[in-house]
């Protein structure tokens, strides 16, 4: 079947099988390999992308279901080469080590801050509770998201 969707602002059309998962469509078909695949039971959240502005686990969405919709991945987070504050926050606060959970964490963090520009530590922990990180022990991820909240770019907070 043919599917058309907007990925990071660009329209893409591809011939796919109906059973193809969105995570594999992004990674294998479009070579957007920032989105990762860490489990097979929808627990780990390394595959989180946005579908029409909502964070979703792309291992639990068929590529066909994204047809006609807008998808945004970690590759679409920086604008004109300028890092999003959440990306900068993760660097400043050492919110990543191996980097495997990072793309999903960043997409969730951006979505949280768009909705709640000043989240508490508890709200951040809850927002990322559908995602597993094996390296950081989470505290520096919480600090990273707080850094992004405090250092938000003007266009984000306005």
């Amino acid at each position: 079947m043919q599917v058309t969707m907007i990925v990071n602002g660009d329209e893409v059309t591809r011939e796919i099988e109906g059973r193809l998962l969105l995570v594999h469509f992004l990674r294998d078909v479009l070579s957007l390999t920032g989105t990762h695949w860490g489990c097979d039971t929808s627990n780990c959240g390394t595959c989180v992308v946005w579908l029409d502005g909502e964070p979703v686990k792309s291992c639990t969405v068929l590529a066909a279901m994204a047809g006609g919709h807008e998808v945004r991945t970690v590759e679409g987070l920086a604008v004109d080469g300028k890092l999003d504050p959440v990306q900068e926050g993760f660097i400043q606060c050492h919110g990543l080590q191996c980097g495997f959970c990072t793309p999903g964490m960043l997409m969730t963090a951006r979505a949280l801050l768009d909705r709640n520009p000043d989240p508490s530590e508890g709200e951040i922990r809850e927002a990322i509770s559908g995602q597993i990180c094996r390296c950081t022990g989470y505290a520096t991820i919480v600090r990273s998201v707080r850094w992004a909240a405090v250092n938000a770019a003007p266009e984000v907070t306005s």
Partner: protein
Amino acid sequence: MTDTRQRSFEDNDQKPMGFGRMLRKEDPRFVRGRGRYTDDVQLPGMLHLAILRSPFAHARIVSVDTSAAAALPEVKAVITGADLAGLGLAWMPTLSGDVQAVLATDKVRFQGQEVAFVVATDRYVARDALELIDVEYDVLDPVIDVRQALAEGAPLIRDDLDGKTDNHCFDWETGDAGATAAVFAKADVVVSQDLVYPRVHPAPMETCGSVADFDPVEGRLKLWSTTQAPHAHRTLYAMVAGIPEHKIQVISPDLGGGFGNKVPIYPGYVCSIVGSIVTGKPVKWMEDRSENLISTGFARDYIMRGEIAATRDGKILAIRTNVLADHGAFNGTAAPVKYPAGFFGVFTGSYDIEAAYCSMTAVYTNKAPGGVAYACSFRITEAVYLVERIVDCLAYELDMDPAALRLKNFIQPDQFPYMSKTGWEYDSGDYEPTMRLAMELAGYDELRKEQAEKRTRGELMGIGISFFTEAVGAGPRKHMDILGLGMADGCELRVHPTGKAVVRLSVQTQGQGHETTFAQIIAEEIGIAPADIDVVHGDTDNTPFGLGTYGSRSTPVSGAAAALVARKVRDKARLIASSMLEVSVADLEWEKGSFHVKGDPGTAVTIQDIAMRAHGAGDLPEGLEGGLEAQICYNPSNLTYPHGAYICVVDVDPGTAVVKVRRFIAVDDCGTRINPMIIEGQVHGGLTDGVGMALMEMISFDEDGNCLGASLMDYLIPTALEVPDWETGFTVTPSPHHPIGAKGVGESATVGSPPAIVNAVVDALKPYGVRHADMPLTPSRVWDAMRGTAQPPI
């Protein structure tokens, strides 16, 4: 020896040169989704491989029919154990000198074992084809309970081994049995406790996988794979696959965590190589999470009896232990050859005692191979758990404060280097200030008051302590090798004409920040800014030989190599500087980044000036070659012995038995600190491992041998909601034998935290008369402990 003062650089943000907090060079690519992990590799014509796995724990293979799978047009190859046997590849050596089946030929020995594989045009079709392979099994009784493995009439697992008649794997002992028995006989108090360290799994977020690209014309194999030890893997492939070593290039790209899971060679890697040879195309294998949990290297699975002897006033005299170790169906333990139980011998911990003895029996069961993984430092997790639980049991028996008991028995600073009763020479330590700092950060006395007050109201609060000594940096090649490869590490440093540099390592980061910290070591030694130093690692064609990253050995071994190779380059730079400044080398003084004439700081040449001269047209001192580079292979004289004091505060809900970790204070001492930010991150991650192991994680089996923890639905890993905001501190006791005084630290928190958490929970349950409870302390296990009905985990 100890310097507990904060060194000034600790607070310096972005110190430009050398040690101190520095943001990571790795991060810019990872936050943009531009890391390059194994499954990101896409090559022209690449095929995909999927593995058929055994549904049974123990069964004879009667027949395998692959005809329906092979008939699919997208399927390019279907390979069985019989096919591999024809190539002499059905079995491969393990890192501990046993053999492991690549694909089962005679029978399967654990659920999830590799039986056949398919190579197809895409990963979906490869999985479809697995469904079409028809295997007939003759199911056998499995051995699941390790306590029954040596019972008379137990099913024989390893009938592939000549003359094997039982499930015995090996015996091992250390210490002095007679001397220890004599001390026990004269002791006022003897406490004994059975302890289980359950089977868990390192479960890195990225699973294991590989891309094999065999070029039949050149006879060259290029293999991207998730390996923590690319050079050792290359050598093993050369020995097993018969491809000459200079024709094998192993590339370990960015790894999405390793945690010991990516040290062994797995059948999947070998299958991808065979798949590429057979099809003439690149072949990718990427396992899914369930395959990772069910078949790759597990951790722990030690059943221990701990005994401790002491005087009535709390002087510890001796420790004795007997261990039953479950190694699964093949002994795949990744440990130095002469250390089948790893470094479990450090079970005497941080205490100065008169005698110690350990006897151990390891057995085969119908489970996946492994044992050494998950930040264990070669079984030190088990050793520290044993000693720190049994010391708490003694405190309970003597009705003594567990902090006071530890303080009374520490090895004293003037006793270092300290030879333990099991033969380990601890390099340095000053334990009391570390313990006192943790107690101060925790507000220990106030916590005990709060606890006493809460107990009057029926609230369950527990305070748990763990004080550990690690042993990391394997190791001296005289004693330590893996399959004959000495545990040394190489390092190469080249300074380019314009004064920029590249350093090549034999170790392989999996997130620990080597690309940043090794640049800092070089910067500290030679005065080139870290931003101007590229760190190359993971590609066997482009890096010097060495044993890889595990056992927290990178800083102790490779870090030493980096410092020494930089000094070697600096020595040559000094000769060039002396000719440039026309003074003797004795008249030169080194100030980070430049040489100047003694007493005349204005007459100087920078390392950049020297680099240009080294490659340039001017004269060099007689006998000196051009260029500015060096290489080294560092053989450590001893391990490094970092230590730490951990205090955990838990609240237990008496109505639901749910444990909440309210606070966790971790004070670590790893000697000289290269990058405090990165150390803190390593500690946070390890403490989270500890919460997982102590409260949530376990790989268990039913009586038929079905693995019950083979997905993230059942194998529970802490999320942000299960862990507190960590509180950390540090002291600095440098390693005297290490070139920069640095010790390893990456595994300290995983090693040190589980006993602190268990000690805290047992302390919380004191009003119920609970003296011990085995991990994982899930609500149901705590509930049973409160009611005296707890059973050890199987």
